[in-house]
């Protein structure tokens, strides 16, 4: 089937490993995603805070620079649990904005164009499709959340000495767990929305609503019934509770941490079921 021959010829060569094929989806998705200037601007700006944090860590360990700048940086911004907590919060917020931008279209554009049948008529399962789509977002969000988080901790550990990392191992796993959990929740919720809501603006609106409206409802419940259990409805509050617990950070939301973990696992399972139910080659009309 050479171009000049214009003839059909079967393929008898080597095939790629089956397990690696889900990575085809992110590769092609990135080609389209990085064409967007808005995304690119947001993506680049999400590295500003990690770079600034690394600069702060560097300045903490550079007496000469501190003397030259005459900045009491060690007093103003101490490198402790809170420093890394706010780092995770800021980067997770950027993660939310990036998800708002690209999450709603990932599955929706295949559903809208009847593209799912084209994927699933190949040796490519529904799970692999979902994994591929989730990986697209997961890798992007990882680049701005837990990966720079680890780099920041490693830099601090390197400059402070190996003992610091051992003494503050909680910071390492709190950063990794807090970021990955948030990324995972964002990916699952946005992909479930993307599968069910075809219109991009409506899907983005739904994503924002899911993260903000339950907070208002919880506040109303608290006012009326004088209970904080309403916050169990809010993904944002649940995540804040978990993150605060991981970093031993005080929080005004007082739902038990165990209930927050159960709620987040329930949300993840529910979103996955929604997504899995919708990713089909064809809808069966009963």
């Amino acid at each position: 089937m050479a171009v000049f021959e214009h003839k059909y010829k079967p393929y008898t060569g080597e095939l790629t490993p089956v397990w690696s094929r889900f990575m085809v989806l992110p590769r092609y998705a990135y080609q389209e995603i990085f064409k967007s200037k808005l995304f690119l601007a947001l993506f680049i700006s999400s590295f500003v805070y990690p770079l600034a944090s690394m600069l702060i860590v560097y300045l903490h360990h550079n007496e000469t620079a501190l003397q030259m700048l005459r900045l009491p940086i060690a007093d103003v911004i101490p490198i402790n649990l809170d420093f890394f907590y706010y780092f995770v919060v800021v980067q997770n917020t950027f993660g939310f904005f990036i998800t708002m931008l690209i999450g709603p279209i990932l599955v929706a554009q295949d559903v809208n164009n009847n593209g799912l049948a084209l994927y699933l008529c190949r040796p490519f399962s529904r799970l692999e499709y979902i994994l591929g789509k989730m990986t697209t977002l997961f890798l992007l969000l990882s680049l701005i959340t837990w990966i720079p988080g680890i780099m920041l901790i490693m830099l601090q550990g390197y400059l402070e000495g190996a003992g610091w990392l051992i003494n503050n191992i909680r910071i390492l796993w709190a950063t990794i767990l807090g970021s990955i959990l948030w990324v995972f929740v964002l990916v699952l919720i946005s992909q479930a929305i993307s599968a069910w809501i075809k219109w991009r603006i409506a899907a983005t609106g739904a994503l924002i609503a899911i993260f903000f409206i339950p907070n208002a409802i919880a506040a109303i419940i608290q006012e009326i019934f004088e209970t904080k259990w309403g916050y169990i409805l809010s993904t944002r509050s649940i995540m804040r509770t978990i993150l605060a617990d991981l970093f031993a950070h005080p929080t005004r939301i007082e739902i038990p941490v165990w209930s927050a973990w159960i709620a987040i696992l329930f949300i993840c399972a529910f979103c996955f079921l929604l997504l899995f139910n919708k990713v089909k080659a064809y809808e069966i009309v009963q």
Partner: protein
Amino acid sequence: MQPIIDLDNLSVKLGKREILKNLQVGLNGRAIGLLGPNGAGKTTLIHTLLGFYPPSQGTARIFGQDIRTAPKKIRSLIGYMPERDSFIAEMSCVHFVRMMGELSGLPSDIALERAHEALFFVGLGEARYRSIETYSLGMKQLAKLAQAIVHGPKLLILDEPTNGLDPPTRQRMLKLIREIRDTNQVHILLSSHLLRDVEECCEEILILKEGQVAVYCDLEAERKANRKFLELETQGNNLVFAQAAAQLGCEYALVGERRVKLILQNEVEVSDLYRIALENQIQIRRLNFKRDSLEDIFLKAME
């Protein structure tokens, strides 16, 4: 010989409706036409072969692989051109076909090479860098064919490939299908409600009616069979004439008020027909020997 597609008591239920009912047939041809009126279960059968719908009873085997136990293996052998408009948004055609090749297991560089080749083969070479969203309906059909053949499947399933095409594009599509068939490297399952498309491309036909096998036959063998088909145009009561012919042992079908189709038995001569026409005071205005067309086979199956 092992059938290419072996339907073994296959039944499929969608919700509470039984769409396919106990299909039992082995398909062997290089190009198999899948025919049937709307709602007969053609597309459901294709989707079941692709593993989109689970069988409620029985099973099917493609190249000996069971659709229940080896759906991925089967799909690696199949190229599928869906009936509906299907593509990946915001992607040039060459990228789309390349991606489909990669998802089928082709290495990236080979997928790109074969995507170019497939697009030149179907006649979209000059338009391959355009986004599919800008394509006309005919071009989209050709792009769907390109993605179905890019990985060099052993079985090509085409669901209504000429749907909505203008006559020149339809002819082009049929020519491509025949070219693919004539390579002898791939089997084709062509689903269509257009009898001429199937007649032009297929050697075997499977006709479904209400989810059951109505006819499965070798079209070539049917054509070559030594059966005498006659088409007559008459003036007078053609039902009386047809019934008189039936008494001679002929099978008949009335086509409108003036036309009768007959299958002559060996012992019946044309002169016998003139005799019974005279006896019943009917004029035979025209008499043509006619091969058993696919249309006849189809209409008989639908009776």
